């Protein structure tokens, strides 16, 4: 097994302006297949990158990525351009689906046995073929501003697909505390990233 490589920061130039993506998604809602192709081109690397990070298995990640895009196609009318960014909407869907797939598969294999989570999640180590985005530096900095418990609670849930109850077990902390740390951790991240809701 090859050792995970420490990535270098690379700018990703393929990301289009969010406004275009939002407009395309509105067209997709009307059945515009060409617009759907543009949406795929714009966010497939982000979707696959996220899904693979959660799921690990590339073949399974490919399946789930396809499901995510079909969901985008079927329910694009639910996207409200006034309410949020198109890319966030798609990544929210992708994450939910990846997490559900991981939990579903977990019934067959005991994932916790395979995980090396000791020492907490390592946000810098990613698979070789995955490149980082411009957002990465900011996220890294903001994660660094959290307490250890907040960061581990958020990271184990978001990047590994654990429920807060699992996270509590993994960290040996009360579940109620984990829930609270997830919430106040997200508040701190939101403010650090300058997200305006």
């Amino acid at each position, binding site marked *: 097994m090859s050792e995970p490589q420490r990535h270098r920061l690379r700018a990703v130039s393929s990301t289009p302006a969010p406004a275009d993506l939002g407009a395309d998604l509105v067209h997709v809602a009307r059945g515009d297949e060409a617009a759907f192709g543009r949406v795929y081109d714009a966010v497939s690397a982000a*979707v696959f990158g996220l899904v693979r990070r959660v799921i690990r298995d590339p073949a399974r990640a490919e399946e789930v990525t396809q499901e995510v895009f079909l*969901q985008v196609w079927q329910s694009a009318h639910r996207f409200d351009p006034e309410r949020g960014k198109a890319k966030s909407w798609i990544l929210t869907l992708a994450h*939910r689906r990846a997490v*559900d797939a991981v939990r579903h598969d977990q019934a067959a294999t005991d994932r916790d046995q395979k995980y090396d989570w000791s020492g907490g999640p390592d946000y810098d180590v990613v698979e070789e073929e995955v490149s980082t985005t411009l957002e990465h530096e900011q996220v890294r900095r903001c994660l660094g501003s959290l307490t250890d418990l907040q960061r581990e609670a958020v990271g184990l849930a978001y990047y590994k697909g654990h*429920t807060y109850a699992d996270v509590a077990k993994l960290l040996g902390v009360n579940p109620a505390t984990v829930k609270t740390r997830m919430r106040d951790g997200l508040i701190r991240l939101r403010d650090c990233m300058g*997200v305006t809701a």
Partner: protein
Amino acid sequence: MTLEPHNMVGAYALDALDDDERAEFEAHVDRCPECTDELVGFLETASRLGATTEGAPPAHLRGQVLAAATRTPQERPVVLPLSRRGRTRRIVSRVGLAAAAMALVATGGLAVVEHNQAEEGERDLAGISDVISADDATMKSTQVGDDGTAKLVMSKDLDRAVLVVKNLPKLQRDRVYQMWTIADGKAESAGVISASDSTGSSSHMMSGVSGVGAVAITVEPDGGSEKPTTKPITQIST
């Protein structure tokens, strides 16, 4: 608003609730404007955590996804009364969407993909997706031959089932596959699978399945039989 569900906003946005808690929270958020406001910001924040790494999917996936979309009917927008529109409603629909996505995964989203490769009438497509996305849908799968599969997606609520077959073993020219529903020891034909459908992937809708104990596939003479004349190559109990 009680403190407990509100405290779940963070875990919800990170997809860290189990299915029951998720449903509980989604019911709660409908009546909780504070949760809604916080949730919008949290979802955006979480999605930025997810936007830190990119990896191009295999090149063949693009064509596969676009072809599948072409054959997949889109949801019709639900038109809400004006009085119910607004901020809360919008976020709820976002939440509802995620729940719908979950249901599809749990009940075999893969079947959707496969059925899209089949040549089906539009009406069948809509009916099939109803079954697959039904809340109570269950999926069972068996292997047929070396690399064939048969998957049965069933909704008791809709009283319908969809049998998805793929790569069935090749038959002699004068033979076809025939599907049967087994109830009270009797086999009733559920139609034949055409030669072109049996080599690729195809989906077959069955209605009135509430009393059915199993679905079976047999090899029959061209045109099908009134009763099974051979032993099933596969049987899936419901």
